[in-house]
């Protein structure tokens, strides 16, 4: 396992390129949707896509690929000449072998996101292995002891942003629980014609560069007209004191991103076919680098059957928010013989990815308008309402606010210490004084929008926790950062300033996350499951990526049964790069390392 073979393969810079056109009307080679229903229907797709790779032996070749999504020729990072990377289909119980050859001029890697694998198979350079040098082949081999929808991506630099991401589906040993006639993976992503190195450097130079929804004099005027001068002035003063921007929802926006669905631009309109009366399983994967999407299919109710590959009690919704690296499987049953639009708008409403469910190729349905641009509220900033009115946002260690009568468990103050003694140095621009669990809060821009929107509170993993023990200790971590300086951290410490978190091998522990920043962060622990607790601190939901909203405080249980060194980080790629990353070491007899 894990042998690196050198020689033979030369880094092919231009020679092996294929050309992929992503614009409407061009040649369509994209679309990784698959069909493997158990009813024996022949695969059929309106958008022809490469066949999925299945079995136990895989040869994957990482290389460059010429692409054109916007009318501008660019070079993407591809696997086997495909962006997104090919769909891999495994079977629970198999041992898979993946020979990954790097034909780039730089090091590369593949991480199997959500897979429980030995530490040396996890694909994180510096922690799992040294990475795959140019021209070398690394052999991944591990048993597959889980099922569901996952994905894989590069863990090297910005290769994920430039195309190295692909879907991964593992068939359950006992067959699919929710049987359906059609089955497609839908991987969402964000493509930038700008070099990601330049995008990241730009954020370091001017962090609001990509936000073209900032508040204007006209907005203030409208607020005065609507709320009166006093209220509008107080609100303005609140933000002015904080030196924050209520329109700051995503760091990188549709001003530079083209949002893709299975590698197709909105114009190219990736299409999945269905027959009347069929049940269609859509496995949504957020394979983007920096984007949250709000997904809906106007005219259809979606029944969520799995979250992050884990089967859940089915729950029917009109819309769900999918954070970067999260996965939701939904089932839809289109009753009419017509097309339906799969609409995935970016959280900041700066753009959308789009595809179509249709009975015939070439059909399409109307496009809904983008929703109104949301503004962050005082609650998003972790403030109690009365505090927002009195405008004392910066008080770092406010005592708990008394709960108002009639509050649900969700919004009642969380017992216990609100803040660890953490290093709130100059690298932290705010502190949530009154963080709440808010599991039933769908998040900014989705509240009271007239649709049934999925929340974490709606999701209950079937079968219970993987470990019945009570947590033996708590580790509290604050998600911190400084937007204007564009640095991100846990507990005010960037990766470079931090020590590894040390878990004792075999222990059951609780991680408490408090989001002290104004951004929504998808937090991913490698190698071990994150089992989110409900308002009574009981197991509720097993995930590999946990989205934490601004001003939110939630907890999850972790069983440290995976020996080795692991990555733990925000899955927003540039947040990880800017310091929101920790090493986790699982070892026997390790000291109880506090953050």
């Amino acid at each position: 396992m894990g042998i690196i073979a050198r020689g033979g393969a030369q880094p092919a810079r231009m020679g092996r390129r294929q050309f992929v056109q992503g614009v409407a009307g061009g040649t369509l080679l994209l679309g990784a949707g698959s069909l493997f229903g158990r009813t024996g229907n022949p695969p059929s797709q309106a958008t022809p896509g490469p066949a999925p790779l299945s079995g136990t032996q895989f040869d994957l070749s990482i290389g460059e690929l010429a692409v054109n999504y916007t009318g501008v020729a660019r070079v993407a990072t591809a696997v086997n000449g495909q962006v997104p990377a090919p769909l891999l289909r495994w079977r629970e119980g198999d041992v898979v072998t993946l020979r990954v050859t790097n034909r780039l001029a730089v090091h590369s890697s593949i991480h199997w996101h959500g897979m429980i694998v030995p530490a040396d198979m996890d694909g994180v350079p510096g922690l799992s292995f040294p990475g795959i040098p140019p021209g070398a082949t690394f052999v991944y081999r591990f048993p597959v002891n889980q099922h569901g929808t996952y994905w894989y991506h590069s863990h090297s630099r910005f290769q994920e942003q430039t195309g190295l991401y692909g879907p991964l589906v593992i068939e359950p040993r006992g067959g699919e629980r929710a049987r359906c006639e059609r089955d497609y993976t839908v991987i969402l992503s964000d493509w930038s014609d700008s070099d990601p190195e330049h995008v990241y450097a730009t954020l370091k130079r001017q962090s609001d560069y990509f936000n073209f929804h900032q508040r204007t004099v006209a907005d203030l005027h409208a607020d005065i007209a609507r709320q009166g001068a006093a209220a509008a002035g107080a609100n303005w003063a609140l933000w002015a004191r904080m030196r924050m921007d209520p329109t700051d929802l995503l760091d990188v926006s549709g001003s530079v991103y083209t949002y893709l669905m299975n590698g197709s631009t909105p114009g190219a309109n990736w299409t999945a076919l269905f027959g009347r009366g069929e049940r269609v399983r859509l496995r949504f994967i957020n394979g983007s680098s920096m984007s949250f999407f709000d997904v809906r299919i106007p005219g259809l109710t979606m029944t969520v059957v799995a979250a992050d590959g884990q089967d859940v009690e089915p729950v029917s919704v009109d819309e769900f928010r999918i954070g970067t690296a999260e996965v939701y499987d939904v089932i839809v049953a289109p009753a009419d013989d017509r097309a339906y639009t799969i609409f995935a708008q970016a959280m900041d409403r700066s753009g959308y990815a789009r595809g179509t469910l249709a009975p015939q190729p070439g059909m399409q349905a109307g496009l809904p308008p983008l929703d109104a641009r949301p503004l962050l509220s005082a609650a998003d900033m972790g403030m109690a309402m009365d505090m927002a009115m009195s405008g004392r946002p910066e008080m770092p260690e406010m005592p708990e606010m008394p709960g108002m009568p009639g509050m649900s468990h969700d919004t009642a103050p969380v017992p216990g210490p609100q803040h660890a003694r953490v290093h709130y140095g100059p690298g932290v621009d705010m502190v949530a004084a009154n963080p709440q669990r808010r599991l039933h809060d769908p998040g900014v821009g989705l509240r009271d929008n007239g649709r049934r929107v999925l929340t974490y509170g709606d999701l209950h993993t079937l079968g219970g926790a993987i470990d019945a023990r009570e947590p033996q200790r708590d580790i509290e971590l604050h998600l911190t950062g400084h937007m204007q300086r564009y640095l991100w951290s846990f507990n005010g410490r960037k990766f470079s300033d931090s020590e590894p978190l040390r878990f004792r091998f075999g222990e059951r522990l609780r991680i408490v996350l408090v989001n002290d920043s104004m951004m929504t962060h998808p937090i991913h622990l490698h190698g071990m499951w994150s089992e989110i607790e409900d308002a009574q601190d009981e197991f509720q939901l097993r995930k590999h990526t946990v989205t934490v909203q601004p001003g939110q405080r939630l907890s999850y249980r972790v069983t440290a049964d995976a020996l080795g060194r692991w990555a733990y980080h925000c899955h927003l790629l540039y947040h990880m790069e800017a310091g929101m990353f920790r090493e986790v070491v699982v070892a026997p007899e390790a000291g109880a390392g506090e953050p």
Partner: protein
Amino acid sequence: MTPRGAAKLAPRRHAASCHAGWLAMLTVIVLPLGASAAADEDPGSGAAAHVAPAAPASAMPEMPYAQMASIMDMDDAARYGRIIVDQWEWRDDAARRGSGVWDVEGWYGGDYDKLWARTEGDWPSGTGAQGRAELLWDRIVTRWWSLQAGARYDFGAGPGKGWAALGVQGLAPGWINVEATVYAGEAGSVAGRLKAETDLRFTQRLILQPELEFNAYSRADRAREQGAGLSEVDAGLRLRYEIRRELAPYLGVAWRQRSGASAQLLRAAGAVPDELQWLIGVRFWF
């Protein structure tokens, strides 16, 4: 805020609609859970199916950050830089005495420490340029403020003059950029400079930038027409249009007041101590 109406389909209903054996499977999975409460120490007993991964066959050793950052190709301590030409403009007043004016700032460094440089000055038509340049070490010390220390050099009219500089730079409430610096010069002379500016957005690209700058000197400098005291007040209003964030032409007005001794020096030289100027320029950065 909560769509409690996010209706959960009962498993039974789902089973009926999608898979007949589904409910039975659920029951099988849920049943052992009830028995799991007693299992305190054994994670496997009674819990959901989960197989812990094997120990790694070849472990990467723990290593210093620099080595890890290099292998990961991920370094949150990497250095970046920016040069902002905030003002690059031509000014004209009622007496048609034109001059070029610049205000340029640049930095290079990491999140905590940066090398900071700035220069501003003017170049009246028919004469030489005069202005100042500063080179500072910038260290962030609080959430919104950094401490700056370094040197300043005045050039142009008269012999060059060096100063030691110490100040703060940061973002005041209301998104106001502030630079406040004191300077110690030759023979015990002291100077102070305070500059504040902000951006008011009319649209996402049309932005008004008000700016205010004060300069004070403990000692007069005849060659530079600087009197002692709060001798220079400069106010500006620039309306720019950001074609790109990095490139914005602008129009504006500037008001210059030279008071006290500075005004007397100017009058003696036949000039006006305060004047309103029209200006046109371009702001750019990279």
